[in-house]
C-alpha cells in the first residue's frame, strides 16, 4: 500500500527541490520552459479549442441535440443508419438525432463532468491533505497521530482499484450524472491528499518555515501564508492530469451502464457507450465521440506532463 503513496510523495518532493531559489523566480523559470515546450503548446491549444467548444457549442449546433427529428429514417433493428450528409454533417444516431449537434453540445457536458469531478477530488483531497500535513508539521505528537490515521485511510483508498470503487459508489447512490461526477471525483481524493501533504512536509522543514517558526509567527498563519501557497504547483499539475483521467473514467462508467440516466442529453462518454452496439453497422457513430474523448484527454495530458517537466529541475535538458 506504500508504493503508490511513495510515488506521489516523490512528485511532491521533486517539485520542491529548487525551492532554494525564491518561489516567484521558479514560476517565471517554469513558464519560460513551458512556453518553449511543443507538448505544452499543443496541449494548451487543444484545451483552448475544447473549452471554446464547450462554451459556444450549443449556439453553433444547427439542430436540437435531443430531438429525434429523423427517427423515421433510422432503423436500428435492420442495421440501417444514416451517415454523413448535407443536412447532418456527422450523420444521425440510432434514434434519428443529429450527431454533429450532439457532439457540439456534448462537449459542454463532457467538460463539466471532467471539471466537477476533478474539483471534488481536489477540494476534498486538499482539505484532507492540508489537515494531515499541517498536523504532521506543526501538531506535535498528537498531530503525528492524526496524520498517521488520515494517511492510513488514504492508503486504503489508493489500494482499491479505482474503477471498482467508482462502480460501488454508483451502485449505492443510484444512477445520475451527479453520481458519475462524485464517483470519479472520490477516486481522486487520496491522490490530491497525498500530494498536498507530501509537499507540505517538505515545505515544513524548509529554511524559511523554520525561520518563521523561530520568529514566533503563529502556526496557522505559517500554514496559510507560507506553506500552502508554495505547495500548490504539484497540485496544479495533478489537477490538469486528473481532468484527462476523469473524462476517460466517466466514459468507462458509461460503458459499464452507469452513465447519465437521461441519454437524450449528449455527453461523449454516454454517446460512445451507446454507439458501441452498432459498431459494425455504423462505426462512425462511435468514432466521433471516441476521437473527441481521446483528443481532449490528450490535450490535458500533454499540458500536465509538460508542466510537470517544466517544474521538475531533474528533467531539465
Amino acid at each position, binding site marked *: 500500500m506504500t508504493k503508490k503513496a511513495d510515488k506521489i510523495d516523490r512528485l511532491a518532493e521533486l517539485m520542491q527541490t529548487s525551492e532554494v531559489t525564491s518561489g516567484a523566480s521558479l514560476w517565471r523559470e517554469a513558464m519560460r520552459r513551458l512556453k518553449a515546450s511543443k507538448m505544452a503548446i499543443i496541449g494548451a491549444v487543444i484545451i483552448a479549442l475544447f473549452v471554446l467548444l464547450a462554451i459556444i457549442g450549443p449556439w453553433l449546433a444547427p439542430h436540437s441535440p435531443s*430531438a*429525434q427529428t429523423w*427517427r*423515421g429514417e*433510422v*432503423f*436500428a*433493428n*435492420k*442495421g*440501417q443508419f444514416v451517415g454523413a450528409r448535407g443536412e447532418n454533417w456527422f450523420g444521425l444516431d*440510432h*434514434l434519428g438525432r443529429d450527431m454533429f449537434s450532439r457532439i457540439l453540445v456534448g462537449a459542454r457536458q463532457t467538460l463539466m463532468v471532467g471539471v466537477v469531478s476533478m474539483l471534488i477530488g481536489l477540494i476534498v483531497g486538499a482539505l484532507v491533505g492540508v489537515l494531515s500535513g499541517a498536523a504532521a508539521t506543526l501538531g506535535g505528537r498528537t498531530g503525528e497521530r492524526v496524520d498517521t490515521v488520515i494517511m492510513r485511510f488514504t492508503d486504503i483508498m489508493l489500494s482499491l482499484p479505482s474503477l471498482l470503487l467508482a462502480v460501488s459508489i454508483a*451502485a449505492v447512490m*443510484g*444512477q445520475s450524472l451527479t453520481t458519475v461526477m462524485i464517483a470519479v471525483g472520490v477516486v481522486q481524493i487520496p491522490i490530491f491528499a497525498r500530494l498536498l501533504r507530501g509537499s507540505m512536509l517538505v515545505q515544513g522543514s524548509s529554511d524559511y518555515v523554520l525561520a518563521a517558526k523561530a520568529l514566533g509567527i503563529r502556526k496557522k498563519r505559517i500554514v496559510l501564508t507560507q506553506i500552502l501557497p508554495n505547495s500548490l504547483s504539484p497540485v496544479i499539475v495533478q489537477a490538469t492530469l486528473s481532468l484527462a483521467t476523469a473524462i476517460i473514467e466517466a466514459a468507462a462508467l458509461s460503458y*459499464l*451502464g*452507469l452513465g447519465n*440516466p*437521461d*441519454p*437524450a442529453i449528449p455527453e461523449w462518454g454516454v454517446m460512445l457507450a*451507446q454507439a*458501441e*452496439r*452498432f*459498431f*459494425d*453497422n455504423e462505426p462512425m457513430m462511435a468514432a466521433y465521440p471516441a476521437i473527441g474523448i481521446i483528443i481532449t484527454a490528450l490535450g490535458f495530458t500533454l499540458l500536465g506532463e509538460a508542466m510537470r517537466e517544466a517544474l521538475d529541475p531533474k528533467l531539465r535538458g
Partner: protein
Amino acid sequence: MRIFKSGAVRAITAAVAVGLIATGCASERGKDGDKGGDKDTFVFAGAGDPGSLDPALASDGETFRVTRQAFEALLEHESGGSKLVGGLAEKWSSDPAGKVWTFNLRKGVKFHDGEAFNAAAVCANYDHWFNWKGTYQSSAVSYYWQTIMGGFAKNEDKEAPKPNYKSCTAKDENTAVIEVNEPSANLPGGFSLQALAIHSPKALKEYAKQDATAKGDAITYPKYSQEAGTVAGTGPYKITKWNKGNKEVTLERFDDYWGEKAKVKNLVFRTIDTEAGRRQALQAGDIDGYDLVAPADVKTLEKEGYEVPTRDVFNIFYVGMTQSKNPALKKLEVRQAISHAIDREGIVKTQLPEGGKAATQFMPDTVAGFSDKVKTYPFDTNKAKELLKKAGEEKLKIEFCYPTEVTRPYMPAPQDMFERMKADLEKAGITVVPKAMKWAPDYLDATEAGSCALHMLGWTGDFNDGYNFIGTWFAGPDKQWGFDDKKVFDSVNAASKVTDPAGRVEAYKKANETIMEYVPGVPISASPPAIAFAKNVNPPKVSPLTQENFAEVSFK
C-alpha cells in the same frame, strides 16, 4: 540498436520470438480443431450460465435451454409451436372437474443411467418435489413447483402457498394418475414445464441425500446439481461435463433415446454475456449458433449468409403504471392519454426484429384468449393532449423508470425503447423524469414494490394459457400496479375457473376486453427473440417458447 547486444535483452527478444511462434502454432491448431474433420461438435452460446443442472431448482431460460436437451416432461409443446402435445406421456386426460389427471405413458423409454421409465418413476418425481424441506421450499429454488402445484407436504413457512398437489398413483406400469385439490388454470400447461421434467428414480435417491442449504446470506445449491454425473433424464442428450471456469456445459448423444436420435454427437453450451460478443464469436467461427441476437445484427448476419430463423412471438412488453405512486394515474383519461401518446408501431418498426408486433392487450396474438374486440388506443398525440386537458393534468410530471445492463426477449434495447417513448410523452406535453436502475435487484425490486410511477417490463409465456399472462398481473391487488378494481380482478379470476377449454378461451377474451377498457398500463409490443446459426448449420425448428430441440441440429 546496440542495446540488443546485451545478453539480457537478447534473451528477452528470443523469448518474445518463441512466444509469438508458439501462439501462432496454437492459432493454426485451434482452427484445425474447430473446422476440420467430421464436425461432431455443435457449440451454442447463451447469455448466462445455467444456475443448476437440475431443472426443478431453476426458473430461468439459460438453465432450461441446457437441461431441456437432457430432460423431458410428461407433456411437451409441438416442435416449433405452442400447442401442447404428448411428451413422456403419449396421451392425457382429466376428469370434468379438472382435479384428476391421467397420463398414459410412453413405453420403452430409458433414463441416461439405465433405469426404466414407468409410472412409478413419474410418481417418485412428483412425491420428491412435494416432500421438499428446508431451503428447497424457498421460492428462489422451487419457483415453478410452487406456481403450479402450490406448497409442500409440510409447509415450513407460514406464508408459503397452500399445497394444491394431492397425490400421484401408479395405476399400472404405464399409467400415472395425478390428483390435485382444486382445478387450476395452470394445468395441464404446467405438466409441460421443464422444471417438472422427469428424473431417474435412482438419481432422485441421490438427490434426496443432499440438501440445499441457506448458510450465510445465500442459497447454496446442492452438489449434485452443480456437476455432471448424478443428474439423469430421458432426453436425446446426456450431460457429461460442466466446466465452470470455462463456462462450458458439454452434452453427449444418448444412444438409447426412445425417439429420433440426435444428429450431432456432442453439444456444447457456452456463455458469452454481451450481444456483440456473441455475434463476433459467431462471425469469428468460434461458435455455431447463439441466442438473443440484437435486432440490429439480424439483417447484418442474414446478409453475410448466416441462418437467422424467425421465431413466433410469445411474449408481451408493456409500460406499467403504478397508480398509488402518482395519483394522476388514477384518472382514466390520463391512462388513456398515455396510451395514445406512445407510438407502438414506431417501436416495432425501428427497434424490434422482424416478426415483432404492436400489442393491443396484455397477451400476444399467439395465445388462446387473445381478443380482436378490445378497445384500442392508436398513436395520436393530439388526442392525448385533449384527454390530458380534460383530466386537468396538462402539466403532468411523471417519473419513468427503465432498466440498464439488461436485454430481455421482449425488450431487446430497453434504453432505446425508453428514449423513444420519453420523446413521445414529451410531445404530448408530459414532463418525464427519467430514472435508470440496474436490472437486478434495483429495478426489479423497485417496480415490484410500486416505487416507479411508469416503468417498462414484460413477460414470456411458459405455456399457452391466458392466465399465464393476465393472471400474473390482474388477479388481485398488486403493489406494482397500485390499484383495486373489482371488475378487472373478477373477470380474470372467473376465466381461470372455467374448466372447459373452449369456454375458458372465451372468458379470457372477455377479461382482455375488460382490462383494456380500464387500461391499467400500456401493452406495447410482442417481440420474437432472434436466434442465429452458422452458415453450415441446419437449424432446429425455432420455437415461440424458445424451447428449441438441439437434437434436430445437423451440419450441412
